[in-house]
């Protein structure tokens, strides 16, 4: 278990104020769109120990979660940090090319309809 988990677990509540985690920044850097259902993924393998030292514990935790592609909302819920903070931290990682926002499916009209019909079938099968 990484050592920081002992200090920042969910039950402990916010030991550090959220804005401190972002260095006071409230706006994500860059122009990547981080919608709540944007799918993000790490661009490389998990960090080595030496590489990890260059990142804050929160950045490292996010990077680890992004090894599996997931939505911003899922990642934010996993890391239990406020959405605004998570967006700022994710944007840092995008800037450093550590993670990437996966492109949305090509908006071909027919594909959209087909996907929606699949959603409908999925719902009916619930």
């Amino acid at each position, binding site marked *: 278990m990484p050592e920081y988990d002992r200090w920042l677990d969910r039950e402990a509540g916010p030991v550090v104020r959220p*804005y401190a985690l972002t260095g006071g920044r409230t706006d*994500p850097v860059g122009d990547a769109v981080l919608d709540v259902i944007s799918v993000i993924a790490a661009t490389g393998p998990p960090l080595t120990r030496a590489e990890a030292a260059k990142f804050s514990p929160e950045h490292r935790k996010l990077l680890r979660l992004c090894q599996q592609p997931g939505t911003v909302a899922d990642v934010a819920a996993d890391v239990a940090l406020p959405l605004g903070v998570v967006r700022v931290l994710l944007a840092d990682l995008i800037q450093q090319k550590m993670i990437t926002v996966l492109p949305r499916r090509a908006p071909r009209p027919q594909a959209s309809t087909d996907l929606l019909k699949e959603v409908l079938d999925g719902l009916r099968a619930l």
Partner: protein
Amino acid sequence: MGSVPSDGPPEDNQFTPFKILVAGGFGVGKTTLVSTISEIRPLRTEEALTQKSIGVDDLSGVGDKTTTTVAMDFGRITMGTRLALYLFGTPGQDRFWFMWDDLSYGALGAVILADTRRLIDCFPSVDYFERRQLPFVVAVNVFDGAPHYDAEDVRIALDLEPTVPTMLCDARQRSSVKQVLVTLVEHVLASAPGGGQGALRDPGAVGQASLPAAPAYPAAPPWPPAAAGSYASMGSAK
């Protein structure tokens, strides 16, 4: 792990999430509805951090302010390996309007939950989604002891377009919630003959370049609308 996607077009098996908003007045059963049909997870939002664009220089002011962490719930319905439906309960209180633009961005559509005892609580949501041209359905959550009306009465009371589906539902019943979502997706499909791009409200369809740099927290949310006088007085004044 070599699972890095290239910049090429998305593959057919790419994971595609869809987003549906669940709106309605405070205490109308939004969280109940989401948790009935999906595994619910809390999403924290930091009100003070997100309420306005606070410059770095203003940090001292932020330090003095009590930051409130607001939990917002969302649920996920996973369909196979590549499709998932995300349900976001929109915060009911009007001081959270700034989050609506963020949440409605790229959304498939919305469910407006209504309580016949407080039907007026729906107006802001109806107004918002009509303005955004986001397809929505109105589902009347049937509470014990609440006056019973037909879905059609509710349509008239809310002055809804004839095309907007209205129905009664029980947010605690899985089959009922399922029917609400099915109706919404059918409505989305129907309101976009030929499956136009607009129906999906897919940001990709618009092109990311056309988005504001910070779509999340518009500095001047267009809410509350001037028309909703009674609603605006609910709690925004300090």
